[in-house]
């Protein structure tokens, strides 16, 4: 019998799809993504005694995966100086892997974002982490995450020709003014 609780182990297994989805979004390549997830699981396992039961295992795993990704990226960039556009090319060259058109469009739009914006919008907007959790994972201030998410959203909306509805769009003001005007009439 091992030290890790059954609960922790089950959570580890349950987090694999999320880790793979996040890794794929970061790395843009299935093989590399799976390598990252494997690396994360091995590292997590060896550090599991430092993890406190009852705290956020998923956020902890994401932190490990993210660190692994950036450390690989730095290594890779030292070895091969020019990797600009490589990520995009890989995504673009395998359209059949990504099935649906809306999916491909979203992945390509995500790919055009700067890395720090992409991870911020994925963690908060897709994975559903709170800003505070995303800030922990990325090792930056909450305000930084908020602004990255906002910029990423604006850019994605522009790339995908989606009108941002509530928080940014002109509609909000318009509707408010309209509602106020209607209220005044009564």
């Amino acid at each position, binding site marked *: 019998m091992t030290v890790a609780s059954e609960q922790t182990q*089950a959570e580890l297994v349950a987090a694999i799809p999320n880790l*793979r*989805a996040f890794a794929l979004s970061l790395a843009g390549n299935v093989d590399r993504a799976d390598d990252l997830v494997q690396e994360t699981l*091995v590292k997590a396992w060896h550090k599991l005694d430092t993890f406190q039961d009852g705290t956020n295992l998923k956020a902890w795993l994401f932190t490990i995966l993210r660190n692994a990704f950036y450390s690989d990226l730095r290594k890779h960039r030292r070895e091969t100086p020019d990797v600009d556009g490589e990520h995009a090319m890989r995504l673009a060259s395998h359209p059949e892997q990504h099935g649906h058109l809306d999916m491909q469009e979203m992945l390509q739009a995500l790919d055009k974002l700067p890395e720090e914006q992409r991870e911020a919008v994925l963690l908060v907007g897709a994975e559903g982490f*709170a800003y505070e959790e995303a800030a922990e994972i990325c090792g930056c201030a909450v305000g930084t995450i908020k602004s990255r998410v906002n910029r990423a959203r604006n850019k994605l909306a522009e790339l995908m020709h989606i009108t941002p509805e509530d928080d940014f769009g002109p509609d909000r003001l318009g509707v408010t003014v309209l509602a106020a005007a209607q209220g005044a009439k009564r």
Partner: protein
Amino acid sequence: MVQPPVEANALPAGGFQKKCGTGNRDRTGALLGSGIGPGGLHVAFAARGNRLAPAPWRGNDMSSDEGKTNTAAAATAQAGAAPASKDQNVQMMANVNNGELQPPEGPSGMEASDALGRQLKKVYGKLLSEPVPDKFFELLKKLDQIPPGGKPDSGSKGT
């Protein structure tokens, strides 16, 4: 003020996992294209319930039938458990960063009710519903031979 209806997939953390348990078999394989049989992911999620089944990589038989029957129960158990643990998580994060934080915001931190958020979650949800390749269960099974926190390398793939 116009608020588009919140879709079923606009869930807080934990929602996608629950969705995974229901399995979108018709869509799987399109993206990660691993072609793994149905056993893996379902068994994994069966182990996620409150009454935990043995870790999937421990059992000798990874019977896909067993995985399927347990899936619904596991998903239900998760649905009940998710909000409590989420609160805990937020609390934990708030404590860690005490002082420089504003109060935690909504569960997703981003309005899920707009078109972009829905689209993003939909695409990400498809990624999440991909079956987990067996190699991960094999890895965990190997890791399970050594105590957590034990010496590195004995369970790694030798990179």
